[in-house]
């Protein structure tokens, strides 16, 4: 599934970032690399952007960017 599909409260492990351009590079540099645990905290009232938590800090991403990150949901 993509990060955009991760529902609030759920955690996923990053599998890959599917973009070799600027967007993908930026995502990787902000910490979205293989094996990273990302938790979705919430989305804005209109569903976009979404706020996630990784490595102890929070980031908000637009849906379009979140869709570039493939994650595997973990079941706690």
């Amino acid at each position, binding site marked *: 599934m993509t990060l955009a599909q991760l529902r609030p409260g759920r955690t996923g492990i990053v599998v890959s970032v599917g973009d070799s*351009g*600027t*967007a993908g*590079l*930026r*995502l*990787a*540099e*902000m*910490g979205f*690399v*293989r094996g*990273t645990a990302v938790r979705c*905290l*919430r989305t*804005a*009232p*209109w*569903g*976009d*952007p979404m*706020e996630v*938590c990784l*490595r*102890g*800090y*929070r*980031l*908000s*991403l*637009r849906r379009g*960017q979140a869709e570039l990150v493939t994650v595997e949901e973990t079941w706690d």
Partner: protein
Amino acid sequence: MGLTAALVGNPNAGKTTLFNALTGLSARVGNFPGVTAEVLSAPVQGTDLLLADLPGAYSLTPLGEDERITREFLLSGRADIIISVIDATSAARGLYLTMQLLELGIPVAAALTMTDELEASGGSVDIPALSRALGVPVTAVTASRGTGLAELLDAARRCGVPRPPRLAGAQERYGCIDSICMPCFTLPDVRDGFDRAALGRLTALPVLALVLAAVFFLTFGPHIRALTALISRGADALARAAPALLSALGVPRPLALILSDGLIGGLGTVLGFLPPVLALFACLSLLEDSGYMARAAFLLDRPMRMLGLTGRAAVPLLTGFGCTVPAVMAARTLETPHARRVTALLAPLMSCPAKLPVYALFSVYFPAPAAAMYLLGALMTVPAALALRKRDDASVFMLELPDYRLPTLRGTVRLLVRRAGDFMRRAFTTILAASVLVRLLGSFDAAFGVVSDSSQSMLAQLGAAAAPLFAPLGFGDWRAVTALAAGLSAKEAAAGVLTALVPSVSAVFTKASASSFCTFTLLYTPCAASLAALRREVGLPAAALAALGYSAAAWLVSFAVYRAALAFF
């Protein structure tokens, strides 16, 4: 010694607070040889170490303007020492940049900020271990309290070139950060308390509305208006007393009039803008430092995207409803040069209160002209924004939501002093020129004799000459045009001139031409103060072009409104 140290770190990591704590108020923006952009720099108090505050960056990869400037500065050889500023509450991400800095072959010392916050939320960091892991000296600093500064300077002086980590790419760097650096930290659980209210499904928008209302009240409320009125009255009194004084000194009367009316009047106008400008910047600074600004940007990002902007443009734009000048200046806080330019250019479309007296004159025809104009202005931002939109809109929007923190008073005051100086310097010349010109034109006839009846003045003659241009809009009357011309120096002047020249609005305007006149007033060239602010943000050629552009757009839209109104009324 004469060395230069560069402060490098993420946005919001506390770089600027640290910079201010070390350098005091002496910071100047300027050019370094070999570096194209202007960089803020100042000597560290009591030393000859020059400190350069580089823009916040997440990495050295030149994906954005700020990264490009940082990278260029560091590669130019201007920096003898690098101080890597890392926010302890988002250390993993901050360390990414640090990893890149270690490879530059320049001595590095690390400053760890917000350690007090980390500890307050239940986390901790083993600094000696982190120092060993990175291979550079790490000093915890609390800039607001001044702790750790001496140790940091000491470390900066003694640090050597670190052993480069030899990592390629984000995967390897984060691998190193995760395995070697992060074990030095104990991370607390992410604190979400406030955000459950600030960003909760049901509460987010009411909280936002409340915060925006508070900003509006603090910036444009009665206390600010009182201050501005006080300044205006002071300037007026001075302007009234001055001619007699100047004549006594032997200054010829016409010149005395120009000096007192134009010069002092102009000064009064500039100073009158200071209270709202400072109040707004104080509010914006508080919002930014406390962390709420990021939440507002998060909530408003989706609607802002329709304008080709990001959420951060929302607050500066909305401020335009209070006054264009601080709104244009607030555009400076945006992330990219393009966003700053577009937001600054859109701000004047938000109907400013100075135009209200003009709309009010036409209330004989319409029940609520102001409301319609506010709406029209807001709607006009959409085509305008789309016209200014960048073709390759690959804007990567990523926003960090920092922990909420309490802003410091010292930092805010320092910022305000700098902003005030900025504004005064730029606005003064433009407003002065416009003021003097308008008063000159309004007080003299073509033979430079003083006129008692303003219908004889040069301004009126210019108005009459330009009047035919406005005939297609329904108000090709010299009185209407003269009022518009007066509005170029200050929008309130338009209402004053119109009232003076036109005893009854229905004598000159029909319902249809009233609509088009209001529309023109809404959209045409903003006041001289706004133009001065615009010039500062977008440069002289763009501002001049924009000044013409607003009026051209105003003409076209007013024409359309007039024709539509003729059909309806």
